[in-house]
């Protein structure tokens, strides 16, 4: 009797790992049992369940970050086959194998694929990416926003601070203090809001300082890699226009 053998199909992952923020990065290869419709996150979960590398040696599970698993939270950003993107929407069936995973090195690496995106949240604070509505008394309802404008602004509001645009930007690095594309687009968003507009100048002035909007060199990689399809380069040019106007107004009115 011929023995029936089921050959388990596997997917090879080559992962750039790092044990601590200061230790040297190294690569480790894993062969993960294939399942239909799996994504990079489910493959990482498989390694977590059975942390054995391709040589059959027991190893530490690969550490990563993820939350929503539907490309709205921005936590699982990593470099997959050379391109920064979200791991949750990186379907294994659509990726070239072996699949290479690396952390986004523009940010400080915490461990393995986990990075610290704190600079992005600091940037949002710096440009005041919010709408101030609190007062010592009831300020009443704000001005209405036209529905057509709301729909347009919604596109910009989809930014999830994932950091992919900063990773692709050649001007975001340790030699430059450039704030990056995402917060500039947020300035455009909050300056477009009827209530947010009241603090328009503050946000523009935050971008007219060291590491502000002047750091953009127009490589336009940001708009190519943004997982949400946000028109980042249009936002940057639009804010450039506002900043230019604000600069001349300030000089001529002084």
């Amino acid at each position, binding site marked *: 009797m011929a023995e029936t053998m089921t050959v388990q199909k596997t997917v090879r992952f080559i992962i750039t790992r790092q044990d601590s923020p200061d230790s040297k990065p190294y690569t480790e290869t894993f062969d993960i049992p294939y399942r239909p419709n799996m994504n990079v996150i489910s493959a990482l979960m498989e390694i977590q369940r059975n942390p054995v590398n391709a040589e059959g040696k027991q190893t530490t599970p690969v550490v990563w970050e993820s939350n929503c698993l539907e490309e709205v939270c921005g936590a699982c950003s990593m470099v997959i086959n050379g391109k920064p993107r979200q791991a949750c929407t990186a379907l294994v069936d659509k990726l070239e194998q072996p699949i290479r995973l690396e952390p986004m090195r523009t940010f400080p690496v915490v461990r393995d694929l986990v990075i610290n995106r704190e600079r992005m949240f600091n940037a949002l604070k710096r440009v005041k990416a919010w709408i101030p509505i609190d007062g010592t008394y009831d300020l009443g309802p704000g001005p209405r926003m036209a529905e057509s404008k709301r729909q347009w602004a919604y596109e910009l509001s989809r930014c999830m601070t994932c950091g992919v645009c900063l990773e692709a930007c050649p001007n975001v*690095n340790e030699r430059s203090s450039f704030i990056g594309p995402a917060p500039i687009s947020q300035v455009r968003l909050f300056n477009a809001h009827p209530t947010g507009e009241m603090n328009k100048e503050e946000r523009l002035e935050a971008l007219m300082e060291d590491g502000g909007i002047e750091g953009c060199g127009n490589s336009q990689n940001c708009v190519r890699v943004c997982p949400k399809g946000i028109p980042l*380069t249009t936002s940057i040019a639009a804010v450039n226009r506002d900043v230019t106007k604000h600069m001349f107004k300030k000089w001529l009115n002084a």
Partner: protein
Amino acid sequence: MRTNSFYTRRLHSLLGVIPLCLFFVTHMLTNFQAAEGGPERFRSAVEFINNLPILPVLEFVLIWAPLVFHGVYGLYVAYQSNLNTGRYGYGRNWAFALQRITGVITLIFVAWHVYETRIQVMLGNIGHGDFGQVMHDIATNGLSFTFYTIGVLAAAFHFANGLWAFFVSWGITVGPRAQRISSYFWMGVFVIVAGMFLAALISFRSEAFAETASVLTQTAIG
């Protein structure tokens, strides 16, 4: 004084256009007279510039000062950039990388070119009337002809692509369509400018530029 890189960078951008781009176009038109009208026209074009009033002031304000600022600060801007066309091989990213590479080439080329021409006049080794001869010697030497061709192509690209970026950085071309049409326009300008400079450079190879020079030397001696 506390410096804000925003204003430094905007000054760098502005000086690149006014006056440097304007000077670049003037230089191109002057040179092109060599291709269009030969040595006599070229000499009279050079003479016209040298007969301008308050020339040392014009030269310092419109050329030397902006050139040094744009060049030196430009090196710092280039130093601050990563070149990542390997990972992101998009057209605009290539233009971004080339803008920095051609900027450095242009700075080296301009320094050498100024040494060979303006500095030599300053040192009294040649006069303004000898530029045709100087350029003839440069254009007929294979090595310096190659160097000048590379320099001219780099400068023309940096000029045209720099103007494309200027229109984005000052918020004039905002949308993707405006930026795309602008890029076609400025690449057309690159081809024309590079062509006119190269035509002039090639015309300097003509023996006519050597002969007029020798006539000049003879009259000087006679």
